[in-house]
């Protein structure tokens, strides 16, 4: 199902770099500010753009988040602030808040992965693999071609076989039907594959001088976004290593003012997260100008 939105019309390299940075930051930095900004960005984008797998609605997501938040204190008893005791083990505030953070991280990565799956269509994946892993690209494209083809052939052959063989409800005759269908199918597929191999050789697949056609243009917006991704990635990694965004829950929660030395990192990430929404809004503004 092809969804055409402004964000998915960016160059595949831009999309790849953007998703790589956003997903790594969301998942690997266990930091409440990054996690909340990521979730906020995903929610805002779900109103702005049409990309994104239709995940069960907001209520189910909230229920899921509540479940994750409440399960963590039951399995983890770290922390100095005890709320009450359950079965002789302490249920702590730190464990509850850590569960909340985990639920935000999981929900925002599910949402962004939904957007990724609609934006990163198969032709973009093949284009990206084509330069670096040409054999993988050929494999993906062959698989994508043959699976619907074989399904269609199987249906046609089994229809024909059903006409030829006497119909009966006995298991043996059904087995015979299936056997003859499958053998006819395999023969057909083998013949097809020889034809395919000949035509691929004729078209020069595997030769060094072969170029492939793709209509992805790398425009100025793509350049700006990719550069910003790279700079943001380097900046965030440096800040992480210096410990500015360090956040711990056990045994005591890091007091947030002391973590504000990474305010720059949070702002950089906020801008990064709003890029998809920005691309959509840009298109609205343009179409508003035209009318």
């Amino acid at each position: 199902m092809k969804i055409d939105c402004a964000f998915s019309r960016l160059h595949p390299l831009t999309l790849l770099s953007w998703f790589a940075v956003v997903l790594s930051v969301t998942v690997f930095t266990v930091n409440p500010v990054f996690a909340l900004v990521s979730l906020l960005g995903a929610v805002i984008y779900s109103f702005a753009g049409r990309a994104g797998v239709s995940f069960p609605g907001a209520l189910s997501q909230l229920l899921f988040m509540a479940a994750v938040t409440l399960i963590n204190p039951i399995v983890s008893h770290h922390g100095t602030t005890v709320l009450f005791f359950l079965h002789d083990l302490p249920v702590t505030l730190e464990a509850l808040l850590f569960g909340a953070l985990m639920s935000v991280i999981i929900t925002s990565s599910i949402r962004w992965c939904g957007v990724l799956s609609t934006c990163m269509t198969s032709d973009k994946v093949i284009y990206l693999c084509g330069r670096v892993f040409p054999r993988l690209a050929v494999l993906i494209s062959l698989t994508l071609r043959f699976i619907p083809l074989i399904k269609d052939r199987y249906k046609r052959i089994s229809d024909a076989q059903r006409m030829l063989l006497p119909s009966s409800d006995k298991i043996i005759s059904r087995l015979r039907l299936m056997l003859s269908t499958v053998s006819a199918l395999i023969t057909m597929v083998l013949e097809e594959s020889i034809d395919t191999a000949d035509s691929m050789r004729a078209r020069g697949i595997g030769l060094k001088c072969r170029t492939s056609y793709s209509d992805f243009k790398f425009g100025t917006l793509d350049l700006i976004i990719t550069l910003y991704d790279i700079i943001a990635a380097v900046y965030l990694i440096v800040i992480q290593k210096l410990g500015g965004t360090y956040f711990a829950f056990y045994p005591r929660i890091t007091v947030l003012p002391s973590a504000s030395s990474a305010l720059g990192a949070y702002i950089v990430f906020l801008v990064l997260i709003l890029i998809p929404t920005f691309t959509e809004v840009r298109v609205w503004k343009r179409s508003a100008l035209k009318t």
Partner: protein
Amino acid sequence: MKKVIAAAAVLLSAAALVFALNFETVDDHYGAKGERSSNRSVTLYVNCIELLDIDETSMSSALRSSGVIPSDGIIIPEGEYPLHEGDTAFDVLRSALNDKRIHFDYTSISDKSAYVKGINNIYEYDCGDLSGWMYSVNGIFPTISSSEYVLEDGDRIVWMYTCDLGRDVGDTYYTMNGGSDHEN
């Protein structure tokens, strides 16, 4: 909509079930449970001295700066505690920690398999892969769970935090020659 209601019902009933299992407030839990006096007693000593001279990289900075590690490394100073019939090393530890309102985390599948995960928010593996809590009775490190070891009058139990599988606190089980219990 029905699915959402069903999910919410499941969540609520699970929560109710969990709460049915011994819900106690903080004061209930730490309150005096009727001190039963006994004419038998044991000595208990809980410390984490090994953590004091550990290098910077092994321990997380959160643990170091949190203040849960006492400056002298002693969590419960050596003292006498009443011993009741059938008390195990684990029972004595638990009642002493409850008495002093110190954080305690353990898992136990059955009565005989208690495993101490953390005392006073100092947890296993906080100091590397070889760290955790161990106990010795009268200087010997038993090879059974602390909830299996029944104590005698006058025993001296020491719970200590090791950063090296017991080798830094005197347990020879994992050394080259092996301890005397190795044959069991």
